[in-house]
């Protein structure tokens, strides 16, 4: 396949596995012969805060960061986080969103409310929006923590990448005992049909 050039953001809630998803994407891209820069968030926000991983893939990359209006893809493991980071999406960008809602503390305590009808609003928010109940699919695969892999499957299909290459990348980053279910989850995402 062509050497890919792209810029993407992985966003979600601390603990949802954005760092691992970033590792898998990076392994895959390296294997394709591209240069990669991945910028992660460690520390405090991993305790249930809003988290983001910046990924740039290409032939010559300077800044590792994605800027407002600069992301070709946003992969969101939670709806509110997709909405929060939406300004980072390019005008013709693609939004891949897990339909899960995780209420932040100010919402749980009633101080703030979770934006209403976010699903349908997200659906209209970008040039291309792929929404998927990744948690449900991951549960079906027997591994609730693999929702991130379902989304990677959607992404891989979207950019026309070969499935086997991704399986390789998963293998490099996921421990043997969890691998099978993660691959199942990835495949489910890869095979998902979207009607847009």
């Amino acid at each position: 396949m062509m050497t890919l050039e792209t810029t993407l953001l992985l966003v979600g809630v601390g603990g949802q596995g954005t760092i691992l998803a970033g590792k898998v994407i990076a392994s895959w891209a390296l294997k394709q012969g591209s240069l990669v820069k991945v910028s992660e968030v460690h520390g405090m926000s991993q305790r249930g805060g809003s988290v983001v991983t910046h990924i740039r893939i290409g032939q010559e990359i300077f800044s590792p960061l994605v800027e407002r209006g600069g992301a070709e893809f946003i992969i969101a493991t939670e709806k509110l986080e997709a909405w929060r980071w939406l300004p980072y999406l390019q005008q013709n960008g693609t939004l891949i969103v897990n339909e899960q809602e995780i209420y932040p503390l100010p919402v749980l305590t009633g101080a703030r409310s979770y934006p209403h009808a976010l699903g349908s609003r997200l659906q209209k928010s970008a040039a291309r929006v792929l929404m998927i109940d990744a948690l449900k699919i991951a549960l079906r695969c027997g591994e609730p923590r693999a929702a991130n892999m379902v989304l990677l499957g959607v992404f891989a299909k979207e950019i026309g990448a070969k499935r086997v290459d991704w399986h390789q990348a998963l293998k490099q980053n996921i421990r043997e005992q969890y691998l099978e279910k993660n691959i199942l989850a990835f495949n489910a995402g890869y095979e998902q049909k979207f009607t847009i």
Partner: protein
Amino acid sequence: MKALLTGNAAIARGAFEAGVSFAAGYPGTPSTEILETIGRLYPQIEARWSPNEKVALEVGIGASLAGVRALVAMKHVGLNVAADPLFTFSYTGVNGGLLIVSADDPGLHSSQNEQDNRNYARSAKVPLLEPSDSMEAIEMTVYAFRLSEEFDTPVLLRTTTRINHTKTIVTLKERQDIACREYRRNTPKNVMIPAYGRLRHQFVEERMRRLQEASENTPLNRVEKGNSIGIITSGITYQYVREAVPDASVLKLGMPYPLPAALVREFAAGVEELYVVEELDPFLEDAVKALGLNPRGKELFPLTGEITPAMIAEKISGKKLFPGVALPGDYKEEEIPPRPPVLCPGCAHRGVFYTLKKLDLIVSGDIGCYTLGCLPPLESIDSCVCMGASIGIAVGMERANPLLKGRIVVVIGDSTFFHSGLTGLLEAIYNRSTITVIILDNRITAMTGHQEHPGTGKTLRGEKTVSVDPLAVAKGMGVKRLRVAEPLDLQSFTQVLKEELTAPELSVIVARHPCALHKPTAGQRYYVRIDKCSGCLLCLRLGCPALYVQEEEGKQKASIDKNLCGGCSLCSQVCRQGAIMEEVAE
């Protein structure tokens, strides 16, 4: 061989390649993975967590004097703690090379301030290196040890979060074989009494002069010729500059201190407009201006937070890097609730903060996961300054304002207690304070990702060692009122706390329960019996991410997300209706 490494993994690799055989540090974002990586991958290097950064630097100095190459890593505020040995070690110089890594955090991703530690290089008179990506992090780490030994100086490698936590591609090399140097007593060099210190200070000033020459000639400081716009920069902002204004001429400073003055003058003479692009302080800008040049820097760029390529493009070339985004008409930022980090579901120490709030106490806080107890709805911390400060601050408050007496409580984590709480506790004992100190003993350094510490019984590499008991330490220091309490038992914890508050002397309560993320409780999950729930929502005041409000026939009821529930039982203890029950095992 090629690899994709974070800046931290690259520094660890650099230490390996440079033949380093000793590494010490104390955890702190964004520096933590440097020592962790060395511990995991490079058995040739003795790697250890020290109780705090000052001790880490001191054992590093010992290793250097004894003759080996040593690396000491910490976050920016850690260098404040280690500053005392640094300033005088600058005088004595090294035997084996010594590198201090300071990981700064512009933008305060995970810190209490955003100080600029380049200033330490100037005030301690040591050379400063600043990598712009992981490859440079390896190369500069290796180079630092040569520099250190050649010039008889500790070296400061300063990174920022975007370097530490960004993965870029590197080429790996073999490890150099570096033998341990001979150790010989050298009193005038290594014993800093005034008579010898005066002489060593002269040496230091002469060393600065020679280092400045080195800085003029090192390939780490280089000009990338472009158009008539000239930009002086270093570290991550170099990447942003190249991204934002690709045609500009750039003076990239890999060794920004001491400043290569001649190179800067020559560069300035070759361009029409001169800029300095740097995050935080005008460190380079001031030095460039001191040469009589007139660059534009902080008049365009902020003194706070991070700089972005978009900012640079706009300020220097007046262009937008990306076309504006067309957000949906119903997109309103005000509508988006923030998502702050929270105490984990299942965290037993939530019980402490719930109690502190209920009793309406004045709480002198410290740094760790438990600082999150300051956020609503727990909202029970009055102050938090730096690691270990909680006890001293409480002592001062109590003595200064008699109206506060009997209401002042300290919360301090176990790792923080060993880091710098001990001397504060001595102050409290010695000066007859009557405050109540609660040590939140979750048996690990949790906030930074679960590192071992002197209380855990394990070393950095997971080997068994003694486990220091904070209670025994307090007892040994002379504290008379000592209690161990289970923070998960709200009733008995409240009882213990009330007793200690009324006691007319200093008390130490060790609230002991392992970190819920590190060692989750094996217990059952909890659920709300909707028929019993009165909708009072008292349980929500625990601020547990697993608890939420659900509409049930037009009425608000509490509910528990069983995927998140940690089984701590606190909500069932808080509920007055007995509506929160343990799930029965199938």
